[in-house]
């Protein structure tokens, strides 16, 4: 039962208000993409123990999708930010670096 702060309406939302949407920052591969790229886009997901970036929707609130940077082992939430971006904001990455030097996640870190 996590609490995540919705970056749109500012509400500290209980997990029951939210819908999980899996891994964040996926790149869509459509027609013309290779079998491997499309397979990875559709099925391959990271399952790290530690820093992770996820998609959530404030379904029973403002309805907006946002991203959460959090730790899957300690459940610490480093920050949340709007989903309309292709990479995590610098201040959140800096905060993670401060607490967990040397972290990396896919191409970020």
């Amino acid at each position, binding site marked *: *039962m*996590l*609490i995540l702060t919705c970056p749109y309406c500012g509400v500290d939302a*209980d997990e029951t208000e939210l819908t999980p949407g899996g891994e964040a920052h996926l790149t869509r591969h*459509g*027609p013309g993409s290779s079998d491997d790229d499309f397979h990875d886009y559709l099925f391959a997901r990271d399952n790290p123990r530690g820093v992770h970036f996820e998609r959530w929707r404030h379904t029973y609130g403002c309805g907006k*999708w946002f991203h959460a940077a959090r*730790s899957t082992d300690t459940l610490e939430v480093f920050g949340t930010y709007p989903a*309309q971006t292709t990479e995590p904001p610098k201040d959140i990455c800096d905060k993670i670096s401060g607490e967990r030097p040397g972290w990396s996640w896919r191409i970020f870190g």
Partner: protein
Amino acid sequence: MSLRLRDGGRLIDRSARMAFQFDGRSLTGFAGDTLASALLANDKMLVGRSFKYHRPRGVVASGAEEPNALVNLAQGGTFEPNQRATTTELFDGLTATSQNHWPSLEHDIGAVNSSLARFLPAGFYYKTFIHPRPFWKHIYEPFIRQSAGLGKAPKDRDADRYEHFYYFCDLVVIGGGVAGLQAARVAGEAGAKVLLLEQSAHWGGRAPVDGGEIDGRPAEAWVTDTLAVLEAMPNVTLRSRCMGAGVYDHGYLLAYERLTDHAPQADGPRHRLWRIRTQQIITATGAIERPLSFAGNDIPGVMLASAVRDYVVNYGVAPGQRTVVVTNNDDGYRTAICLKQAGLDVPRILDARETGGGALMEEARALGIRIDCGRAVGKVQGGKRVKSVQVCAQKGSGSALEEVACDAVAMSGGWSPVVHLWSHCGGKLVWDDVQAHFRPDADRPPLGRSGQGFVAVAGAANGALTGAVADADAMARGVVQAIGLKPGKGIAPAETQPEELPIEPVWLMPAQAKTELKAKAWLDYQNDVKVSDVQLAAREGFESVEHTKRYTTLGMATDQGKLSNINGLAILSDALGQPIPQTGTTTFRPPYTPISMGAIAGEARGDIFQPVRETPMYGWNDSNGADWEPVGHWRRPYAYVRSGETVHDAVMREVTNTRENVGLLDASTLGKLIVKGPDAGKFLDMLYTNMMSTLKPGRCRYGLMCTENGFLTDDGVVARIDEDTFLCHTTTGGADRIHAHMEEWLQTEWWDWQVYVANVTEQYAQIGVVGPKARAVLETLGGMDLSAEALPFMAWADGKIGAFDARAYRVSFSGELSYEIAVPASRGQAFWDALLEAGKAHGIMPYGTEALHIMRAEKGFIMIGDETDGTVIPQDLGLNWAISKKKDDYLGKRAQERVHMTDPDRWKLVGLETVDGSVLPDGAYAVAEGTNANGQRNMQGRVTSTYHSPTLGKGIAMGLVKHGPDRMGEVLEFPGTDGTVFKAKIVDPVFYDKDGDKQNV
């Protein structure tokens, strides 16, 4: 024998007698008794039978940790099994029955299991009952079923009421003993919003029983004073009979309040589940005494030493008149002293330590009690109650040195902190060698969302077996600061307790106990697990404590191993030759003790279990014969049944009348999504497989929607309202899902596109007017021009029909001349009434979902959820005409190019017609020659929809068949579930009006 003492009992009111029944016998107790104390007062030493061997069992504890005294409570709608007698408060009229015996508690046939004990070793389920195979069904299974389970399952509907309660605060203190009270006081004085929970009806925990002074006052007086201080604080809320049940992520906490269990006649809910969000939690949950593992430690009359003095001090009940006390620590002496002071006989204290204890030992000796050090219980003699103990040397193998007659044994194996709530959310433990127990490791707490700990532990739960108040005071000060407040200046109350010498761990008594003794030394009373079982598991290679637990069932009963876990893992560690911390503990999972299913459900039962979505015509439908069918959260009429008709008759009538005259369909449940904006057309081109951007305003187009993995997810008619606006119809169950699907793509992938989506499903009542006389009915009402010229097939128009503002769509899901007309929801019923009136002369009748299904199947139209099941792509259904070849991209396009999706062997949609006109069973499979790798018959297709068509007078069906469209006329075999084999011919899926003449008039 156990009995009520003439004096004493701080919790009972001797002036208030309570009559109750146990196994049909009338007994009495006093107000303030627990069922356990009242049973002991009536010399009911034997209260149940054990799970596996049906051994006689008595009360062993005095609180939530009780493994033996489980009873069935009450009858009928309030019946509840497996209730602990030790936490059941007595009330007048209580009825209880004992469990797990047949035919009676005293004479139990199952006790023969005891003599078969050597056939029921650890893991016996996996060993004994495997061979010979045929024995399983007729011998082993009936045997296991009869002996499995403890109480009986309730048969009647729960007559009580339950509720959920939401609560938000700064701090929850769990446990109302002296540590919890002090912690709440410190936080309360600092201004925090505090909730203090106590699982029992009484505050103060063990302190009033165990004695000692706090702030120079007797513990009980200090408790009374502190309670008064807390009650006067507006920012502190106290709840007794309320257990902290589970700690979850980010400060979520469940608490379980038992409001009327002790007073069943009282008004209001029986249980309340508190759903709490708090910044910080302090668990002041105390400690639980451990049994000692000696032979016969399960015979009624053998009890925890602390429980023995609880019964004496709290209830004025003596578990025995001659009690042998056996201990490995100083605390056990308190029981001997308490018994002696109550005028009872203590023939012997057996202290397993060679040199005995400290001040408390001297006090006991001064009372004239004989104390034997380095001594142990070799074996308890007795059957349904204790007769004597054989005394032996703790260091030996159990050779009896003497026999001491007694009727009770009080055992103390040391104290284990209650670390459950600390551990639920990831708090780690550390092994304390001095006190021989696991206690919370303050450096590794459960972490909250900020990355800081949100649970702290105070008092005995923290390992502070002495100095609990000071420990709580210090803990609370830290927690207050974590909340962002400043603790007050007060100093911790001073505590006065006798000096105690250290415990010496005793995991097996005597240390070198012989095999036959170990086979009678119980670890887990409720699941009948002995020392020998755990040792056997270790010999058989079970090294992980989690595996050993499951193999032996140690700690898996309803008490979750509150008494047995530490003793069991100590035995395992010894057998594996490794220190206890290396073995570790099993996982602590919520709830702390079982909570009622009713409390979990709360108000969500009966009519309000799930809200029903109602169309504007719901009431009319309901009073006009609607046979309801749930569709999503909606209810839709399956058919409108008239008197004298079966449901099937009604369906046949509705189809025929619609085909011949005119029918009325409540289609309001269809999803209606407005998609608007300069990029709306571009967006819908991505969502639908076909081209939507080319649709002209005023026209409609049927569209298919796939998910990114290519599978069909929804379908419906899209109407273009104007250049920027589309109205997308979805399936009844799909509106919310497709709305969310659209939002997801708009917000997370194409966020720069200028489009918004609004779900207007419930803003409109939508009514299908269907059949050859549909236009005539509408023209009777007058208004807009609905002629074929003005409103051709697949067009829509706004206008007035009669007095109603309406939007008419010329679409057809039946193959007939058909108008779907949307009016404002508030006008739905009036419009429905007007149509019925206008249609009277034309034979109008409402029809339900089954007639709709049959008519669409006659036309070969697919239904999402029938022809699709999440593995079907549009190409499987012959819907290639609805897939745009011109578009570079749409959701699902790339996936539909994958090798498996383009496989020519995929099963494809065909019509199926039984050779004898009967109806194929739904979901039946068509068998093929040969068998697969598992030896199962090969399959070549399956039925997706099947009906009796009154129009054609025979059974019709749709199905997916391998190479189906190329096999027209071939007959397939579909075995039914009853042995009959249905034969059906592959035909065109369009059974009726293939050219579409009827709908296009």
